[in-house]
């Protein structure tokens, strides 16, 4: 398997604080890859750099053969990177369908004038987008919610809509930032099943930051462990579980 995403000696400093320090790893195409570590280890900072919310201080991020660490945030959707956020970042006034349609933004072409006229191509592309959104709704089993404002849904369902919105981008790589935090066991299991289906049926590579060790150990192909901004271990779940550096970071000495 070739690497879809490679992190190459990436560092990020905020003033005197080094949040991420010389981290390197490669995510193979078609993998489910987890990034774990104690609070403040730099996982979300790393995610924000991959989604170009800010550039790394040093190092390179290469996605699909292209250096993306200097890209503008809004260009990543077109390149094929979708993501969800640690804290809910849905458009809560809009309905489920409208939220998913926002994810398709880059795939549509209407400009101000053609949108105001809503004629010909502008109308046809909206129809096509509406059809595509229905496939995602089907996939995530949220048919009964499609016309509800997302703000009215339960936390777990809101996260599921956010996942759907990231899928609507049509990504090759999906970044999931603490998808299951705050979910009950059943909701967590649902999400785990969806992540496996996303990889197996849609062929999307998944990178997730996660605290829930159950889901990490169960579905990850490989795991990277960060502590205080540095990569302390990288490998398969079995290797990580046995790694003395990881055990020390999580449990302390002995």
């Amino acid at each position, binding site marked *: 398997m070739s690497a879809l995403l490679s992190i190459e000696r990436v560092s990020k400093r905020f003033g005197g604080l080094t949040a991420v320090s010389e981290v390197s790893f490669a995510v193979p195409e078609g993998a489910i890859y987890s990034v774990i570590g104690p609070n403040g280890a730099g996982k979300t900072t790393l995610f924000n750099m991959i989604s170009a919310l800010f550039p790394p201080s040093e190092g390179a991020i290469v996605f699909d053969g292209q250096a993306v660490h200097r890209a503008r945030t809004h260009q990543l959707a077109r390149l094929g990177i979708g993501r969800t956020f640690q804290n809910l970042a849905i458009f809560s006034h809009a309905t489920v369908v409208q939220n998913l349609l926002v994810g398709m933004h880059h795939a549509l072409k209407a400009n101000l004038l053609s949108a105001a006229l809503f004629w010909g191509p502008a109308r046809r592309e*909206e129809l096509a987008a509406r059809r595509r959104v229905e496939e995602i709704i089907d996939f995530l089993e949220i048919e009964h919610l499609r016309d509800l404002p997302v703000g009215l849904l339960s936390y777990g369902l809101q996260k599921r809509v956010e996942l759907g919105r990231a899928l609507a981008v049509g990504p090759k790589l999906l970044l999931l930032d603490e998808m299951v935090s705050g979910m009950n066991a059943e909701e967590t299991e649902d999400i785990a099943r969806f992540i496996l289906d996303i990889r197996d049926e849609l062929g999307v590579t998944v990178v997730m930051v996660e605290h829930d060790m159950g889901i990490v150990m169960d579905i990850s192909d490989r795991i990277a462990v960060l502590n205080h901004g540095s990569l302390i271990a990288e490998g398969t779940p079995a290797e990580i579980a046995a790694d003395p550096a990881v055990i020390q970071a999580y449990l302390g000495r002995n």
Partner: protein
Amino acid sequence: MRTGHYVESYEKQLALTTNPVTWAWTGALLLGLALFPLLVGNYLLSVAITVGIAAIGAIGLNLLTGITGLISLGQAGFLAAGCYTTALLVADYGWPPELALLAAGFVSALLSLVIGVPSLRLKGLYLAITTLAFSFIITHFLLYAEALTHGPYGVRVENLRFLGLDLTQLDQLFWLVLAVLVLTVLAALNLLRTRVGRAFTAIRDHDVAARVMGISLTRYKLAAFMVSSFVVGIAGGLMAFQFRFINVDLFNLLISIEALAMIIVGGLGSVAGSILGAVFIVLLPEAVRALTDLLPAALTEMLSTYVYEVRGLLTGLAIIVMLRIEPHGLIGLWRDAKRYWTHWPLSV
């Protein structure tokens, strides 16, 4: 309760409405409005024209403030830009009013880029202050660039023929305003059901997520400013037709506040709400005037001396009351009422 009405295709789902009853009511409303000039006197007709123009302006502002979440206190500036563009092009440069009205939209839209660019970094109150400053700069320019704008003497517009309509006749001006309003409503509703409208609301609700979804903040914030100011500029151009003699005093701070009041009272982010708000805010002083005729003479005199202050007071009161009882505005009240009656007697 309405049952048995199912949407069976995506075409129908994208339509503005598939309900024949809604179509019938809309048709009846438009017919009634078209016949309105035949039924009422000149005074009511001129009030109706004011309402129409205010509604166009309010829709424009709502696209920016209600939909995209960029607060603007610059409404007076954009109205002034549009109004002066039309008036000067017709009066001094002999342009046909049709083109001069379109030009009002374009000039206003171009000017909006001037505050659109700083808006990329400003949010909330800071943006409000910037737009307010912009509005003052515009009126200051209009007052002192005398060679171009006639400064304090104002501009007089004559011989207004628009696509065969004689705009000096109130009924024909009313039809023009009505037509522009209908076009504005359609354009706004269309925008809102495409990727452009969704990008606007996405920026309002969560700008980081919007960027990650592929929406360029630069492009869409500027687009929101331009669309909004285009519409407001057109409303300003219509004001030139309505007043036919214009000067800077028409475009004071109260105009911007009233425009904000219209969209807050009517319903932020709602096209229909903008219209309801415009009707409400324009008719409020009229209703008060009708009521004060019933009051003792001394009180009437006082109220007419301070008419400007009373208007400001009423606008402020309307905003406060509406925010207290229904933050979604008049359109929210309407939706609640509709829900209540469709579910009656099972409604709570």
